[in-house]
């Protein structure tokens, strides 16, 4: 996509003020309208959430070392797994890639100065902060113990204050998410640069666009749901609680109508990241661009039709269950197509195993397992056995964590030099990738076995109650598998800390990053590292974002630079997608 020489401002640009040092002081950040600074603030908030959620995860794992539960009483354990789930879902995964990296790179990839509505963007961040405060304080002060799913009537009859507080938090966070989604959709629709047709857009933008559509259409339903839940808990309006002639299963329909599409809010941006990173590190044009782009949209739309697969044993009718099972399988296809396309992209490439690439490969491995085990859960007969067991826990951790979180880390390593102008230490980065990969599989693979053996979710202990001990065989299997899982979680935790340490150390000790350390052909690699306040001096024109033949490695820069425009690309070699 290399463009006019005018944009290629080598040399002098390193001295130019970038978005980080163009102004300073608290107010310059707190009232900034710069999408990059907002993205960085989001990144900090998201990282803190991940740390909190991760600590709770480790506590859960440590507690389950002993069949009786080693650390907490049941009440505390219930609060801890609720905190873990709720923080990870609402404060971490949903905003992770879009709000931080999406905010930072979406306008730059479009060659634009900012998103369409910069003030709304800032408002979205503040809503996130307010929502997070509501959410976390509600849970820490008075102990929310409903699980992140808030199932009625339990959530209506357990102590009201934390439920109302937390659902208020979710309501506010929802608006934050809607604002981000709206901004992205409008920006992509109206601000593409000359030459960037829909099918020349980087795939990351396609995925953010599809995500934005889901955020816009699904999140209001979440708002309605939690509002009704709050009203039921306080005023007993009689919608979800059978005591007041409500229907508890109705809540599940409401809840999953949002929360299934939310799964795609979490995974689509991750898929976008992989589609972006893989071709760069393989030095190959992405394979099947149109299929990948359109499959994002297909996933976004089909994702709205499958929520009932969370409710096969909830007492919904057999016919409903059958229809939802069928629709669920339809959404498996576009995801499968993407995996094959990514593999084909690697074919005959030149694979650079940078840290970013290591995490991408890890994603492919883990996401494949996560996706395939979805087949066991989409299939009705097997889901009846596996529903609400650790099999489900393992499945969605493979997708959410092995997918979204791993892609998020890959993206951080990939774009860190651009965001902060510093290179990280590749050795430590790779060590972290290896530890995370090994730790992840040790943590979650045993959980598939636990679930098949019958270990239910959300159990504070697994030895049974007095007079009704769990059978000896089961107890032994459960204990052994839980211990492997806990050991894995510790390794995973160490890996993640090393990843974080590597990135943070780069800020202080990293060597200065060139414009284009990896040889990417999307627009962000043509602007300075870190970018100037307005990103570009003039609006660039663009071509195909996945042609790398026009870039060459320059040992002096320790980065890639464009070949002089005179050298033509052999037409047969890398055909642009049209």
């Amino acid at each position, binding site marked *: 996509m290399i463009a006019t020489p005018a944009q290629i401002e080598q040399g002098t640009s390193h001295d130019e003020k970038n978005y980080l040092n163009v102004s300073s002081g608290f107010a310059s950040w707190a009232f900034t309208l710069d999408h990059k600074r907002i993205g960085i603030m989001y990144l900090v908030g998201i990282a803190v959430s991940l740390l909190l959620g991760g600590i709770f995860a480790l506590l859960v794992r440590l507690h389950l070392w002993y069949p009786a539960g080693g650390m907490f009483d049941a009440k505390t354990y219930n609060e801890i797994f609720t905190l873990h789930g709720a923080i990870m879902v609402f404060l971490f995964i949903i905003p992770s890639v879009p709000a931080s990296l999406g905010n930072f790179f979406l306008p730059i990839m479009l060659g634009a100065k900012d998103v369409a509505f910069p003030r709304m963007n800032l408002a979205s961040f503040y809503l996130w902060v307010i929502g997070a405060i509501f959410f976390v304080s509600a849970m820490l002060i008075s102990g929310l*113990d409903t699980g992140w799913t808030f199932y009625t009537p339990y959530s209506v009859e357990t102590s009201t204050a934390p439920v109302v507080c937390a659902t208020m938090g979710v309501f506010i966070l929802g608006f934050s998410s809607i604002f981000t989604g709206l901004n992205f959709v409008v920006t992509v629709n109206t601000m593409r640069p000359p030459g960037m047709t829909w099918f020349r857009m980087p795939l990351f933008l396609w995925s953010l666009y599809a995500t934005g559509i889901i955020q816009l259409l699904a999140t209001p339903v979440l708002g309605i749901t939690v509002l009704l839940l709050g009203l039921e808990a306080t005023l007993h309006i009689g919608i979800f609680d059978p005591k007041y002639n409500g229907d508890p299963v109705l809540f599940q329909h409401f809840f999953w109508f949002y929360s299934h599409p939310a799964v795609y809010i979490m995974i689509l941006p991750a898929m976008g990241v992989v589609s972006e990173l893989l071709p760069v590190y393989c030095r190959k044009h992405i394979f099947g661009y149109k299929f990948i782009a359109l499959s994002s949209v297909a996933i976004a739309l089909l994702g709205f039709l499958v929520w009932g697969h969370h409710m096969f044993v909830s007492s919904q009718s057999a016919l409903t269950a059958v229809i939802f099972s069928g629709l669920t399988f339809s959404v498996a296809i576009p995801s499968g197509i993407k995996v094959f396309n990514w593999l084909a992209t690697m074919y005959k490439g030149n694979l650079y195993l940078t840290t970013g690439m290591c995490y991408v490969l890890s994603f492919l*491995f883990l996401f494949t397992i996560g996706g395939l085990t979805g087949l066991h859960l989409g299939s009705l007969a097997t889901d009846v056995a596996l529903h609400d067991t650790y099999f489900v826990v393992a499945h969605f951790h493979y997708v959410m964590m092995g997918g979204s979180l791993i892609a998020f880390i890959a993206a951080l390593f990939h774009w860190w030099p651009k965001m902060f102008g510093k290179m990280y230490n590749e050795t430590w980065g790779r060590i972290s990738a290896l530890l995370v990969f090994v730790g992840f599989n040790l943590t979650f693979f045993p959980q598939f076995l636990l679930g098949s053996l019958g270990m239910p979710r959300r*159990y504070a202990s697994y030895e049974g*109650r007095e007079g009704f001990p769990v059978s000896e065989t089961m107890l032994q299997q459960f204990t052994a598998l839980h211990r492997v899982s806990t050991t894995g979680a510790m390794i995973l935790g160490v890996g993640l800390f090393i990843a974080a340490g590597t990135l943070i150390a780069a800020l202080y000790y990293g060597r200065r990053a060139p414009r284009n350390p990896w040889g990417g052909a999307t627009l962000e690699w043509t602007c300075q590292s870190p970018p100037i306040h307005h990103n570009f001096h003039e609006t660039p024109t663009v071509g195909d974002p996945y042609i790398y033949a026009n870039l060459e490695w320059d040992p002096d820069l320790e980065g890639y630079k464009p070949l002089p425009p005179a050298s033509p690309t052999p037409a047969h070699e890398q055909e642009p997608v049209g």
Partner: protein
Amino acid sequence: MIGSQLFSDSMHLPTLPLAGFWFGDSATATAENVDKVFGIITWICIAFFVLVVGMMIVFIVKYRARPGHVEQPSPSHNNALEIIWSVIPILLVALIFFLGFNGFMDMRTPPADSYDIQVIASKWNFTFQYPNGASSPVLHVPPDRPVRLVQQSADVIHSLFIPAFRIKQDCVPGRYTYQWFTAHTPGEYDLFCAEYCGLDHSNMNSYVKVHESEAAFQEALAELSKPPVWGPDWGEKLWREKGCKTCHSNDGSAIVGGGPTWKDLWDKEETMADGSKVTVDHDYILESIRKPQAKIVGGYQGVNMTAYPESLVKPAEVDAIIAYIQYLSDAYDGPTKEEAEAAAAAAEEGGEATDGGGSEAAADDQPAADEASESSESTDEEPAAPEAGEEE
């Protein structure tokens, strides 16, 4: 305690070398079918996984960047290829859908001649009620006979899950739900609550006892329909089995998230949340069981005890619980354990127990528990239903 006699019947089925590894015992035909479907899906998954990861590894080895190696040109799209790798998965998932659908419809269609057992889920206990009126916290079932569970919940959503049968169905307040099975292998199998239901969710487990024969099952039912003879003993059993124990200690200790201890509770003056005073007597305990939210002791406002209607705790059982609470406060003044047992033995001997006064007769007959049984006194004179002592 729960013996797992057979490792897995399903292991003998040709399609499932995996099931023995993945799953535990299987004790129903449904379970074997689920295992079969699971095995087929898992093999499809393994095939795809090997394909994807295998290709990935080959590509990493073959195309890794190294001196002298550069990328080679290849087309960046190929419609034929993309259509092939879309259509093959479509066919496979259609097959999986069909297998899952087929198995599910069997699981949802109980045979017409099923034996119905009522299930009442409450925090944090399952109560199983049998057609003869007996009830038990353990699910007793006959072998080789379709059993349908007719499920209700007294409070929040629970889910009855029997791993060895591969079945699960939520118990939803305000409606009935059903599931069924035919257990072919006698034994004891774990049973769990699978839907998170609050504080003691993880202790809401029990087991299924599949009896050796129909006769053994009927015998167990007959045994179950006999209430225990002595009030405080019966009360303690109920305390243990109805879930009281989770929230109310019997030794004066406080339970986090629970209610007041039963130790020395009888006759105690409690201060309610609204400041009024209530003395713990028969009526107060009855009300606290039937309508727990009516009067709440100060400091326990956040606790939401489940209401136990007569379907869950029968009037005689309330009597037994009261007897137990009295006993824990040294205020129990019913017949002694020996008296009650002697009376019960006498009643048994007579063949049937009918109502009547004269419980003193039993008491008078005392020291001779064995004597009573030998002399086979007529029941008309020796009614001594166990409740007799507790009725004030």
